[in-house]
């Protein structure tokens, strides 16, 4: 008989240790805080799900969540189509390719807080090129006081910063399409739209899924740039979940509610990513079912 042992499990030990140190243990401390209360002096007592109930019922959380959802929705609605359009317009070969790629990569190389600072200055009415320029041509623009202006500035900044990522991903998908598909489409008399709809879009679907997930997660967790530009204002108009969370945890030192909120925040992101993923891969799943599991 074959001797069975489970010693092979030791091989995954290093990974387990790493994951434990980097993710599981910090997460568990958050879980720990979320079910306890403290009055300092390292004294804690059990409060159960009280913080969770409080957060879920609080209007402040609802508003921040709605703001964040709206922000992500706008970001995706602008960056994904714009990214695809730019990728389609980029040259496929020749000297223009590297120029375009470098131009596209540039915003991605700038640190978050620098991006925030650039736009903070750029939008200032007194000295900023954008703010002053708009004021000169008669726009009543002021992102520190006007809610719409603040949102417009943040969205413009994010589009400027991150559309490149969508472009690069889509571009990588587009150049991987063999030339013969375009030739067949020309033979079949396909219109430009039909080529996009039936060749390009299906072929870039997978990278597009990654782009959507990345842009959703990043925009849903956005912190640094709005913190630098608007600081959450005017009022609470741009106080997204992350900003709210930091205010609660660091500003007010309410560790319990902040921990509960982090966990809810985390679960919301997880849930939404799952929803995106399921919707966008549903047609593939259908197909593999029909063809008997293989594809």
């Amino acid at each position, binding site marked *: 008989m074959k001797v069975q042992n489970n010693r092979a499990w030791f091989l995954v030990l290093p990974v387990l240790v790493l994951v434990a140190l980097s993710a599981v243990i910090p997460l568990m401390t958050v879980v720990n805080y979320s079910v306890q209360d403290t009055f300092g002096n390292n004294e804690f007592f059990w409060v159960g799900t009280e913080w969770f109930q409080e957060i879920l019922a609080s209007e402040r959380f609802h508003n921040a969540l709605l703001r964040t959802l709206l922000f992500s929705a706008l970001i995706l609605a602008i960056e994904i189509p714009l990214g695809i359009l730019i990728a389609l317009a980029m040259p496929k070969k020749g000297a223009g390719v590297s120029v375009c790629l470098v131009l596209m990569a540039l915003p991605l190389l700038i640190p978050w807080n620098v991006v925030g600072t650039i736009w903070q200055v750029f939008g200032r009415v007194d000295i900023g090129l954008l703010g002053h320029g708009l004021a000169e041509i008669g726009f009543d623009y002021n992102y520190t006081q006007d809610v719409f202006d603040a949102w417009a500035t943040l969205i413009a900044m994010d589009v400027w910063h991150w559309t490149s990522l969508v472009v690069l991903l889509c571009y990588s998908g587009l150049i991987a399409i*063999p030339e*013969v*598909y375009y*030739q*067949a489409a*020309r*033979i*079949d*008399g*396909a*219109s430009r739209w*039909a080529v996009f709809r*039936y*060749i390009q*879009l*299906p*072929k870039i679907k997978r990278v597009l899924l990654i782009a959507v997930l990345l842009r959703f997660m990043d925009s849903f967790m956005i912190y640094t740039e709005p913190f630098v530009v608007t600081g959450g204002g005017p009022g609470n108009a741009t106080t997204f979940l992350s900003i709210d969370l930091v205010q609660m945890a660091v500003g007010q030192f309410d560790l319990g509610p902040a921990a509960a909120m982090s966990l809810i925040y985390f679960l919301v992101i997880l849930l939404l990513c799952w929803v995106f993923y399921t919707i966008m891969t549903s*047609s593939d799943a259908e*197909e*593999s079912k*029909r*063809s008997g599991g293989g*594809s």
Partner: protein
Amino acid sequence: MASIQLHNIAHQYQTGSGLSSEYAVNTLQQTWADGGAYALLGPSGCGKTTLLNIISGLLKPSEGRVLFDDVDVTDYSPEQRNIAQVFQFPVVYDSMTVAENLAFPLRNRKLHKNEIETRVAAALIMLGLDAKANVRAKSLNADDKQKISLGRGLVRTDVKAILFDEPLTVIDPHLKWQLRTELKKIHQQFQHTMIYVTHDQTEALTFADKVIVMYEGSVVQIGTGQELFEKPEHTFVGKFIGSPGMNVLPCQIDEGSAIFCGNKIALQQSVNASGERFELGIRPEHILISADSGMSLEISSINDVGKHLIVHGKVEGNEISVIVKEGVGIPQNPKVNFQSEKVNLYANDYRVSSGRGSS
């Protein structure tokens, strides 16, 4: 359906700094009859795909005109030319079902819905895909995908010609025969003008009525399988067609005979020796091995391919292949004799035809 004429077609590919100095296709003049099945045969890089793309309109030739039924279509798009083309790698539209794939070229041409349905249904039956009509095309195997590529041409009943660019490359060997047979059947039934590009001589010879052999951008011979086999117009054709190819051996000319290694071989052609380089071509099938008389052969290897033996060897340093029928013994000191009526003479690689003196 249409006849296809190529008027002084030549093509140079565009490079970074203008036109490439090398011609992918050298100037050629061709007329291909309506309803014919032609094969463009040649090694990789001989320009056959370039020529096919020029006919379909995917490529605009740098020189010359393309005519369909005497109408100049050089400036027409592939769509306007109404050509169907099947590519080396099957092209299907992943997100569509089989039936939708077949309907796609018709929908693009804004046909009436009922008309589309009728034609698609007919094409599905013709290709034997009716059971899979509503399956996503993506999940099919390569040969069914290739049938769809073909089907997108067949649904358009008015196509001028169907062009194939090595369509069986990715198909399993045992399905190749089947697909080729179906293609022949479709050709017989509908009499489309078909042009079939391949580097596989068996494919070319079984598919086409006329085989066009291309070499380094030029058409070197057009003919039936038999003509290509018996009278290769160029030493390349002789070597390319047949397995193994024709033996091409250096020779001298002396009073209407070829001298090869001191042996006089009577020629069908009358030739005046001049400064040209002469060679004689003899098929391995037309060389006899015996023990008695002839040129001695130094055997280097013998391959048994089942129905016959292929003997490789040397006659005074010249490589020669001989096909020996099964059951015929190979003597100890083998001698070879050429069947002189099967010998072709070549001057600077081109066949010297009978009754024509070399010029």
